[in-house]
């Protein structure tokens, strides 16, 4: 695996034909049935939810949807969810808990949407609720960052037993552009920020935030979508087998500890 810089990865995950969840789902799962709506306000196409089978085992899928063209991006808001998207995800996660099936979250978002309606409907509350509820969800949760893992909007689908990242995926507290814009008042220093922020899959593995890096074909996932999907499948097969063997109490204890131990301080 050759070392690719964060800046190069930033360009790679923005490649127009980088595969999205809609490419991967048919290649990894069988018989996907989409389920809509949060039962309170509406349906948010930025988060796709539903059930499918994986090696004939039922699973729940929650996925942030980057569009493959302008039309799809309009519909899915460039994968920037509104509160009802997060609430739909939580509803379906609770459904998975009830019927004892693993939850697989596919993360790919620039962040939660910033807008008037999102604030009116409680974007902060929706994300907070997911963080809290996923921490005690009594069924295995696996999250995979496919491309962009943007801030709290990504974390709301990433409180999990194991976090995996595609090799070139990035996961950060804020986009490099936002970082440069806020801390240096100069969004054009985006690349410099990307290098500084430690946001690659290797960085996150070192921090103990990510447990597994899923390799991509040479040049990036778009060069061989089938191969990338196979790599994801292989990881999922192992992870599900491992986590389904763990009793619920241990699972939750380990999940809490996974996040509990993250922090760098002296006293």
């Amino acid at each position, binding site marked *: 695996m050759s070392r690719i810089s964060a800046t190069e990865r930033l360009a790679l995950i923005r490649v127009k034909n980088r595969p999205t969840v809609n490419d991967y789902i048919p290649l990894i799962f069988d018989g996907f049935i989409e389920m809509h709506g949060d039962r309170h306000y509406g349906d948010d196409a930025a988060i796709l939810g539903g059930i499918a089978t994986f090696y004939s085992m039922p699973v729940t899928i929650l996925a942030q949807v980057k569009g493959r063209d302008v039309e799809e991006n309009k519909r899915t808001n460039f994968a920037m969810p509104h509160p009802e998207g997060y609430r739909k995800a939580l509803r379906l996660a609770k459904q998975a808990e009830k019927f004892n099936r693993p939850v697989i979250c596919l993360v790919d978002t620039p962040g939660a949407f910033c807008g008037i309606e999102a604030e009116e409907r*409680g974007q*902060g509350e929706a*994300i*907070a609720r997911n*963080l*809290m509820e996923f921490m005690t969800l009594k069924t295995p949760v696996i999250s995979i960052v496919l491309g962009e893992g943007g801030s709290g909007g990504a974390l709301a689908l990433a409180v999990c037993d194991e976090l995996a990242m595609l090799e070139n995926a990035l*996961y950060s507290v804020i986009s490099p552009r936002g970082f440069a814009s806020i801390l240096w008042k100069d969004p054009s220093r985006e690349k410099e920020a990307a290098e500084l*922020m430690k946001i690659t899959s290797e960085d996150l593995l070192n*921090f103990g935030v990510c447990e597994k890096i899923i390799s991509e074909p040479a040049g990036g996932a778009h060069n061989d979508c089938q191969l990338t999907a196979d790599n994801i499948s292989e990881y999922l097969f192992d992870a599900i087998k491992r986590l389904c063997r763990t009793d619920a109490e241990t699972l939750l204890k380990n999940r809490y500890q996974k996040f*509990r131990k993250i922090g760098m301080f002296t006293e």
Partner: protein
Amino acid sequence: MGLEDLLKKVKDRFDDEAEVAPALRSAAYNKAESEKGVKIPEDLFFKCPRCLTTSYKEDFEKNRKVCANCNYHARLTWRERLNLTADRNSFSEFDANMESQNPIDYPEYADKLQKLRKACDMRDAVITGECTIRGYKAVIGIMDSNFMMASMGSVVGEKITRAFEYATKNKMPVILFTASGGARMQEGIISLMQMAKTSGAIAKFSDAGQLYITVLTDPTTGGVTASFASLGDVIIAEPKVLIGFAGRRVIQDTIKQKLPDEFQSAEFLLENGFVDLICERRRMRSYLARIMRMHNYEKIEEGRVNK
């Protein structure tokens, strides 16, 4: 012109306005006045950032730093907040020596923290501990926006998590006064993870049946709104404070239009169903005590914390 003359001049003008044209003391008028370049000595006067009215600092401070004109509840230091909230001499601090490291080697981060520690009389942006409030024992956390806009990094996340773990073990309620610009970007992904860590501690605390009261103060935004600030059993806000997820400027840039003044105010959140009540500073202690009493916590003698 001497300072006394200036003072008299400003005071005279205020007195005149109060009599003849109170309506003129609108935000627009004050803004126009201030743009004309009337310079106001900052150590003697408080200029409200909401209604732009100027008042004597002494009066403002006597009024618990609440704007007499518009009731905006201005920012407090952690010490001021503690003095207004806890029973005298009842506070004992947790984790007083905890300090952040520099996970992404952000340039000059250590120096910046060092300067702020001196200026703010705290090691990082939150103070936690236990105290009594009108005789009710509680674990308390106070965020101070003077310290790097009270952004949440490793220390804030860890101290809040430990506060909840302590309260879970000792069957005590938790009261957090939140204020924050959000996650501390200088600590990279580690700061984002603090949102999950604190929310997880609250899940366990909540399962143990204990009471968590959030008091949202100016400003509570970003990753703190999207984690522990929004998870109280009871969520109280101070009047007129700013509460939101996304920054105002970010939204304005997205939608390309100006947002109304009341957008993301405490009152806006109340209307949209995200806070239980708005409570004035002068009534806060009494409300907190009443709420704890109604959740069957027992009153002990004021000023004592039994360990």
